[in-house]
């Protein structure tokens, strides 16, 4: 076996996850677009009321998780394509993961305290 710890894990899983999260995010963006057309951003009150609705919060949560997973696969691919040094790649993989998990927590906190 000649596998590298920072390789792509040689599977379809991430490839498929990339596509599923993309479709989920596209659906969410359509939802937000329709809401904006319907007046969700008329004022800060309507915007907060819209974003704190249970179903919207559920969808936003899924969007945040999808975005972070999608970004993880995409950014990891960039490091894998251009960085030959495995140590540097591992460092950047870890930093990318930490950043994305942190962003997810931050964004979820924003919508959950509404």
């Amino acid at each position, binding site marked *: 076996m000649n596998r590298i710890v920072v390789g792509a894990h040689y599977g379809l899983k991430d490839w498929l996850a990339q*596509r599923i999260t*993309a*479709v989920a995010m*596209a659906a969410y*963006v359509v939802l937000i677009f329709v809401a904006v057309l319907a007046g969700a951003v008329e004022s*800060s009150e309507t*915007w*907060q009321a819209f*974003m704190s609705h249970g179903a919207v919060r559920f969808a936003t949560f899924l969007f945040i998780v999808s975005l972070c997973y999608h*970004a993880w696969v*995409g*950014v990891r691919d*960039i490091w894998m394509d*251009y960085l030959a040094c495995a140590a540097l790649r591992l460092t950047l993989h870890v930093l990318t993961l930490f950043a994305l998990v942190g*962003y997810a927590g*931050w*964004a979820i906190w*924003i*919508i959950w305290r*509404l």
Partner: protein
Amino acid sequence: MQEKSKQRPKFLTLQEIRLPLPGIASILHRVSGAGLFLFLPFLIWLLQLSLSAAPEGQALFAQYSGNFLVRLVLLGLVWAFLHHCCMGIRILLIDVHVGVEKAKARSSAVAVMAVSLALTAVFGLKLLGVY
């Protein structure tokens, strides 16, 4: 099939790479994705301000969202999102074997560039308060 004897460059010297149009659309998919990733904290921060219940937060949001530089960055991110999204749809279609032929792949790449730029212009004029 192309001839095996054809000399292919075995380097990735960025200045020497000449991409065909679908290649440009493709690398822009990566560039726009990277840009969106880098500006993610900025976007989350704006979301936080926009949803802030405190009047100070709202005032800060009004101040920043009205700032020209912020709007310029947002316009760039709008393009990045639109290009990434349109290109993503193209990739999904190619995944299910729609538009794989060279001519179709080229025209869909042109369509991605044109649609994302046109929609960016539509949003850009809105962002600049033209309508």
